[in-house]
């Protein structure tokens, strides 16, 4: 698996390279801004792009815009965005259309190396990794509604689902059995009138569509 990194802070770039290498990725190129990132992707055609959201020259949403270009031109490239703050707007931009191989995490999640490597692999394999903060912001947007019918526990499960976790992952996180998770999910899908689906990403897609961004 080959990866390209875009991050304007040199310090953090070094750390990212180390983490990616620890995860078994080969870092083909490192870029300091969106333009260099697009050039590197065109040249190396990596499997995975890890990019900061705020980069020179404007320091606003360059990473998001570059990600959208990459998704359009090289749809098979997985993109994981990192940001000091996750904004649901950027998530919404990112998740319109195909949500496979998309990730959007807080920068500080990189520090939890094991979870981050997990997210990297999930995204590179075509899954989704959304920061819990994005998910809760997305939930915040939907007030009316069947969501109010969920129990707090079911909401927790839904948030973990939306962030792309598997049943096993959710079970581990909530310290419950997998069968309990499966029961929660069935209840949720029933309450939200969502079709039942098997594959992780289709489930996420359904949830996101429900949240109004998919």
């Amino acid at each position, binding site marked *: 698996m080959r990866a390209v990194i875009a991050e304007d*802070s040199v310090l953090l770039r070094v750390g990212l390279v180390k983490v990616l290498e620890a995860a078994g990725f080969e870092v083909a190129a490192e870029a300091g801004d969106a333009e260099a990132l697009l050039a590197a992707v065109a040249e190396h055609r990596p499997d995975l792009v890890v990019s900061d959201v705020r980069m020179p020259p404007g320091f606003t949403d360059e990473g998001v815009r570059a990600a959208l270009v990459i998704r359009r031109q090289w749809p098979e490239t997985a993109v994981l965005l990192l940001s000091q703050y996750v904004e649901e*707007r950027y998530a919404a931009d990112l998740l319109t259309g195909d949500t496979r191989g998309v990730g959007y995490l807080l920068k500080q999640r990189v520090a939890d190396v094991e979870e981050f490597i997990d997210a990297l692999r999930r995204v590179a394999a075509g899954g989704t990794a959304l920061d819990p*903060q994005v998910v809760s912001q997305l939930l915040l947007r939907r007030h009316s509604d069947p969501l109010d019918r969920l129990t707090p526990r079911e909401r927790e499960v839904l948030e973990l689902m939306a962030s792309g976790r598997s049943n096993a992952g959710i079970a581990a996180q909530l310290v419950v059995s997998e069968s309990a998770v499966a029961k929660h999910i069935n209840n949720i899908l029933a309450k939200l009138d969502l079709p039942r689906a098997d594959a992780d990403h289709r489930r996420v897609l359904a949830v996101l569509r429900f949240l109004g961004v998919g």
Partner: protein
Amino acid sequence: MHLTPLTRPLLRPLQGVGRPAAFHLHGALIQCCSLLLFAVPWLNGGPTRALSVLLAVFGMAAVVAVLSPVLTGMQRTRFRDRLGVDIPGIARPGRGAAPLWEQLLAGPRAERFWPQARYHLVFGPLTAAAALGALVLAVVSVAAVTIYVWIWALPVEVRLSQAGYSTLAAYVTAGGAGGLYAAVWAVKALARLDTRVALSRLGPTPAERLARRVEEVTESRAGVVDAADAERRRIERDLHDGAQQRLVSMAVNLGLAKVTLTDLPEDARKVIDEAHREAKAAIQELSDLVRGLHPAVLEDRGLDAALSGIADRAPLPVRVRVDLESRPAPAIEAVAYFVVSEALANVVKHARASRAEVTVERIGGILLVVVSDDGVGGADESGGTGLAGLVKRVASVDGTFSISSPVGGPTVVTVELPCAP
């Protein structure tokens, strides 16, 4: 010149007479120009009968009056160059000063025409005459004070009288000194009087001046507000590019150490673990602080996007409804963001609320921001909470702030900010 302690107090009143003297001479020159106009009818013999003389004088007075914008310009230059006094231009209501040709064409209908004409026809010439008198007196007095020098220096055959070193010369010296002090005082006093009158006749009225001052102050305040916003953005950017990245990078390295250095002794692992946790906590704290300054997403996507971030981070459920067709000015957006951020922080700190609600909408030329909670109430803007800072920040853009917080709740903070519809 070395002054002895005795002569210094004697000479002090005479100091600083140079500028007013030059100022009066300049004024006399301008008055000569308008006097020359009066002489025009007599260039070729001219009228001699009383009636025609009167007509000629009045005609020329009318010409001078009509030319008063030009003369006002000359006077303005004189006050600025000689005394450093700025006589502001006469602005039309709601606009800048009219160009000269427009004022000339407007004639008596021009803004503040009659006060100017009166100055140029009456007060100006009178002051110039008085000032010239004072200057002549000063010159004569200097001659009188130095009479002994003349007596001593001039050869006998040129002297006007054989006064010699008589008592008369002493009287002349004393009289000259008195005259000199009087003349200098008059020159300075006339300059002051002229300045006062010119300011009131040739410049705008006090009401106009006040209106203009308010305009200037409003403008400069807007500048200050913008500068403060820019500064916040700069600090946010600096922290984002500096300390925040460093902390994250440190946490990443500690995280890597945790994962890779598995063969370390237990207590070393514990230390790394602790440092890792601390670094993550520091990142969180710094992020919350920086976020309050001026989030990048606010510039980028506007209030709605930025406020959902605040609402999400609040430890209680917050509903956000932003209903705006277009984006307000950046300064207004920044204040609105700050209002919501501070108000919610207050709710968290003091209200013991179970939920809060934020609405932002535009009603005509007003951006209405309402933050309400179902807490215990009893909030008070003079109570030294964050509310005082809020009130100041809202006032800085001419907004209004009101809070209703009966004991027992609910608390509703309402802020109206001006924004172009």
